[in-house]
């Protein structure tokens, strides 16, 4: 059972206490005496104050700045960056600084991008050679690199925030000790850290904090991988069959010149898109 579960149980017991106070106030109300009302109100207010005072790790939510537990804090701090990383890296073919790319601008983007070749041959009449067969792993590493600094900041911020609220904090593992995994329907940031928060004698421990961001990049990247693989074998990928079978995805193929294509895979639900280039079986005009 996770430590989080223990926190839930703690809330539950406090709420039970609150209910009993409320029931007392109802009895007083039935007496219909204003004084009693006032006393009951005071008791209620006092009860609420006591509740929050002894509640331990509960922190008032101010401006969305802090959250009630480390996982939530991390989540709200880093999930936007993870989404941003996925978006930026995806439209470059899984590599922000590709070594093998075509510089191209799509009107919708409004700027030029270096779009990575996932499958490439410099020769004509030949099928391409897959350049990134481990695209899924590469993407995970790229996203990790992209958010690394922000993750450190968030983690530090989180600790600072709890410190400022009087918590004693114990952590294990370094700030770099996290991984990003593309999984079905989501991107998961997994830390290998353990955070212990102690206040007023009560200790909670969070292990292996996770941040989950809804995303279809996993499915999109596997599709890109498949397209590159088929281009290397057949110089072609049959996209119509794919999008009919999986209508939540669309695949656009932009032909730049003979053999050079830019594929854009898009998920209609999340509007995530992945762009990459292929140069395969090029036939130079005339010869």
């Amino acid at each position, binding site marked *: 059972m996770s430590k989080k579960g223990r926190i839930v149980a703690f809330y539950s017991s406090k709420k039970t206490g609150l209910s009993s106070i409320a029931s007392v106030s109802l009895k007083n109300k039935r007496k219909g005496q204003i004084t009693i009302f006032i006393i009951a109100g005071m008791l209620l207010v006092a009860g609420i104050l006591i509740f929050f005072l002894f509640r331990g790790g509960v922190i008032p939510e101010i401006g969305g700045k802090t959250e009630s537990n480390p996982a939530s804090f991390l989540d709200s701090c880093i999930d936007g960056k993870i*989404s941003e990383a996925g978006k930026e890296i995806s439209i470059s073919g899984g590599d922000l600084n590709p070594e093998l790319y075509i510089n191209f601008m799509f009107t919708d983007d409004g700027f*030029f991008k270096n779009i990575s070749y996932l499958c490439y041959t410099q020769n004509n009449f030949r099928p391409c050679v897959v*350049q990134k*067969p481990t695209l*899924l792993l590469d993407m995970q590493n790229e996203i990790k690199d992209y958010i690394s600094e922000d993750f450190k900041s968030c983690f530090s911020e989180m600790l600072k925030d709890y410190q400022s609220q009087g918590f004693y904090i114990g952590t294990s593992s370094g700030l770099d000790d996290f991984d990003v995994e593309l999984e079905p329907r989501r991107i998961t940031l997994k830390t290998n850290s353990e955070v212990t928060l102690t206040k007023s004698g009560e200790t909670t421990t969070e292990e292996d904090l996770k941040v989950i961001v809804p995303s279809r990049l996993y499915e999109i990247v596997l599709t890109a991988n498949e397209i590159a693989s088929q281009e290397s074998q057949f110089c072609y990928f049959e996209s119509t069959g794919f999008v009919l079978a999986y209508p939540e995805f669309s695949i656009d193929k932009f032909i730049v010149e*003979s053999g050079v294509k830019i594929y854009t895979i898009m998920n209609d639900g999340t509007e995530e898109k992945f762009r990459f280039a292929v140069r395969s079986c090029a036939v130079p*005009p005339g010869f």
Partner: protein
Amino acid sequence: MKLVKTKKSGALILGIIALFQIFVLTNAIPAESYSIGEIENAGRTASVEKKVPKLSPKFFSILVSFFAIKQIGFVSAIDENFNCCISGAETEDGIATCQDITPTQASGGECQGQVLSSRCEETSQCKTGTCVVGDGVSCSSSPKVTCESGGGEWVDKTPANVPECRRGCCIIGSGSRFETSTQCEIDGGNFNAGIGTEAACILAGQNLLQGACVTTGNACTFTTGIECGRRSGSFFKGILCTNSDLKENLDVECEASTQTTIKDDKIYWIDSCGNLANIYDADKIYEKDKSYWEIVSPPTCKVLDSNGNVIKNNLGTCGNLDRFRGTIAVEASEADVIPAYGNFAGKDLSCTYKDSVKNIDITKKNGEKWCIYEGSIGDIEGISSDTVGSEHWLARCENGDLKLEHSNYRDSVCAQRTTVVDLNGDGDTNDNGEGESFTTASLVPNQALACPSFNPLQDKKGKANQANIDACNANPHCAVRNVDVQKHNGKPTFYFSVCVPRYPTGFDDDSAAQTMCAAATQKCTQIYQKNIGSLWGSGSSWNDAAKINSECGNVEFSQKMNNLCVSMGDCGSYVNYEGQGSDNAQITYEKGGKSGKKPEKIPAIFSWTNYVKYSDRSQFANQIISLPEPEETSGEGDGSTNTGSTNQFEDIDPMGQLNEGFGEFLSSIFGNNNPTLRDINIQNTLGIGGTTMWGIAQFWSGVAPIGDSSYLAGYQTYTTELAANTAKAGIVTLFATIGAYAGAYIAQQLGISGGPAQMLVLAGGTAGGTLSYVYIATTSSPWALGFGIGALVIVGWIIISGFGTTEKRKINFACLPWEAPAGTTEADCNKCNENELFKCTKYRCESLGQTCQLLNGNTDNPICKSVQYENVAPVITAGSINATGYAFADEDVGKSVEIESPEENGCILEFGSVRFTLKTDEYAQCKWDFVERDVYENMENLPLEGTDSSKNHTFDLNGLSLGMLNAFDITEDVILGLHGDGKLYVRCSDVHNNINPTSYIVNFCINEGPDTTPVNFDSQTGVLAIPKNGATLPYGTNSTPFKIFINEPAECKYDGKPSTSYDLMNNTLECSTSPTPELLGRWGCETPLDNDLSLNPGENKIYIKCKDKPWETNESKRNTNVDDYLYKLFVTEDKLEIGSIYITVGGSRFDLTNNYTKVTGGVNQFSIDLTAQTSGGNENGKAECSYKFEQSPILYTGDRFFETNANTHKQKGLNLLNGNYNISIKCNDDFDNDGISNVAETSGTFNLNVDMSPPLIVRTYRDGNSLKLKTDESAKCAYSNQPNYCQSGSVSNGTSMTSGFSTDHSTSWNPGQIYYIKCKDIYDRESQLCARIIIPGVNVE
């Protein structure tokens, strides 16, 4: 005696010779043909003036291997000279791995890594295998080195042969996906390896629900038999949960409803328990058709007509939809129709586009692919007719979207196949007399370049090379082209066949175009002869008409040659896809050497205007290229096949007619010599006898070299021996022969042929024979002498008069690369941009005119412009200024301009923002800098449009302040060149790379005087603030930090009351006063750490003012805002709350919120639907929710709800094992993705419990004449009076005590009988022995 003996043997020899000569003479007439042929051959072997580059056999071998694949498939790359660059191959596009490079590239340092001497495929590191990631999460064809360096596991097999990569069907919830077992495991689905195709998998996902499953508590679930078995439910195959029998007998309470739901793209009715019923049909509501709610029934309504076309009116009333047939179920708001019932309707996924040719709307079904051409295609009327610039287009209809792909310089051709199919599954493909057609198409590699490799179509002896002809015909992208201009005496004299591309490709390389086109350059040699007129001293008189190849003077020659020329590619006189063209052939001639005369007629060039019709698609609207049937492996013809036959090649002399150009081209394929061609001609013309004699003549004459007319003399000698038939001695024959040879020699030397040549041979032979006879005769022979002298006279006359002399005059056809029309205008080029259907490409653009050029080719929106070549740099002029009161002044066109501000001194205000444009008189790319650079390339900055070519170039000047620099005592050139008077240097490069030699200078000055302008909040791009102005903050937020960015360093304050003077404002912001802007030319001001902005629910307003120049000690010089900047924030007034969460199991709902719910079932696996409902927040409860398993018996993770972004969030089909669960749910309402949202969380616990026990009888009693029982759960009980019933009986073969399933059971009370009772529950759990043995009156009173 000796003499006599000699004479006898000599007579014998002479007799034989005489006999031989008789045979020869009988063939003298046909020998005319030979004479002509011989002369012509002499012409044919004339010098080759134009050397055409030969096509490398190696090149062809690569091509052939490339095209050996059928359309798409494995490409065999055969080239023995490649090395492998393992890593770091320097290509045009960057650094690549595993690239085949040439030795030259290798030695030239184009590989940074290791170079191996083999092709990559033959090296252990770059050999292609399968890269497996995560035990099959991803599998791709890959070289070993790239796979392993990326962390994958490489297997030396193709993906299909790697067990981890084999795909099967993964059933995930109520859907399916064709993927590997590992992927399926990650997806949380059930893997079925036995379903081996994607289509079968999709079908499997759609056919999972099959009947009513009645479980505990008379709950009914519509599910599969297998699933029902897992739940130990009673399965009623093909029965709906609304079935009346289930209601009556099993107390199932599911009722018909008018609600619908979507399942597998179809719309289904749902019952009151939430189960699927039959497919939605508005005519089948319960009141109208009760029977439709009884059993699973096939739909009777249709949304497609017999031809497979969508009946739009039925989309709101019929849920019988199928995305593979072009319809899909969507929410009513997304549909074009209003559903009669429920919230869902059908949507038509077909695609409609305008066919400009037929001027009609064409509708295509979802998933259809078809070809669109821009004019005529392929082999039409002896021409490979694809017009210049035209591409083959593949159109696809994908889920309602029309998408187009295209060839590139026609490197591929579009082929399609239409199949009549039984789309509706009614077994009839021909409903109402019409078939349901479905079209598929593909862009297949154009094998045009492989076509020349099928040549020669004749062997060296001129015989048809049937294997090659068949190969050419078998290739659907090649055609046999016959050029048949001239015949003589029924025999072709200018005739040849060549294998040419059926769909010729375009060229973007001049040398390639010249090489390919030059292959169709030809010379036609005409033969002219001097006539008899010269005999009578009337001077040189030549026949006006060519004796051979006269028709080369006709237009037919130029037409046929141009057709051949066009067939080679974009060559010759032809048209582009817009019907504009140019003439790109030359017809020249060579005069006769003796007469000095030119050929009788010179044909005109066959004009491009004759081909305009080929650009008119309407005239060829039915053309199509057939796509082979899938099962066929060989290339199939496209309907227009074969024109080459065996017979037509038998009598021709192809190489004989081929002259410079094509002859040279073909000889590179045929071989350089064709010495026996004329032998064939001779054999043909001489007939059988002649053929026989020909062989003997060769023997006798010592095999004269071909092309040498002494050959003719060889046999003409024998004709002169006619006179010698009466000779008495071999000497006579010998001299006659010598005379004939001499005559032939003279004929050859003087170019005499035909009759005159024969006369010379005969006269020479006669003279030799008769005069020698006179000389050796023992008696006077005046007749012989007369013959001899007469013969000599004839010889002399022929020689002197030149009678029969021939000469060659040539007509040359030069096939040149096609040139785009000259004199084009912007309107011509613009046609490329205007076509709504086809995007403009470089090829299409440049084919429209000499001046048409594609700009911005590295974008998805290139533009075709008329760009006349010139070498003049673009002229830069002032454009406009997008800042109030600013203007350009003192412009010196092409040299400089000044920006004047509305300020008194005309300078730009400090920190002012000025956006202005400069214009160029032609499309150009520009760069700018604050200092003059020596060359354009060294300029560092781009205008806002980047590297796009444009005529308008936009620049921004902002964030400039001299005062600030001075204030901070910055003396260095923080901004180079900015010293009060600034200059901005601009140069532009046009499309021809003409660059301004000197920069265009934009002069401006920064206002050094007193800055009288306060902070400008309303900059052009709006005020940047965090949170942004107008943002909505989460419920409960009572304070927040905020930060705004302003256009100059300043000190700022804010207050809750409007129009408060700066000094009286209560709250101070912390502002950056650094000389360097913090963000994009702006300086930030934020709330102090300990003083966040206080907020209330609802709208919050604050008013901000700033005082600039924070470094200024003299307060009077500082500028303070008079007007407030209003900054608003909203705080959500209602908390986002998750009102309830519940699970639905078998149609029963269990609320989870803070309650521990126990759900009991009969199987180990439960199918659970999880639902959460939200309220409050920014959007009245609309939120995005996800769930997570905090506790579960095995590792379950969680996900975003499948249905979310609404008030209700549903996740159907969670397949859970029995055990304890704690599910947490988190929702947020951040729909504007600004990172600020309300978040709500809750959790719930439940227990899934398997009922493993049989029902227990908890009470037995007598009620009147009945024996009654009560069980602890719904059960069915039965009894028997036989004692062995407990051991061997079951409820099913006992006497029933229960109607359906119930906790109450009864039977009649019969004392004296023993009741052996067994019971089973709804999960078929039955006690092994009897549940109870009752003896009335004994253990039950």
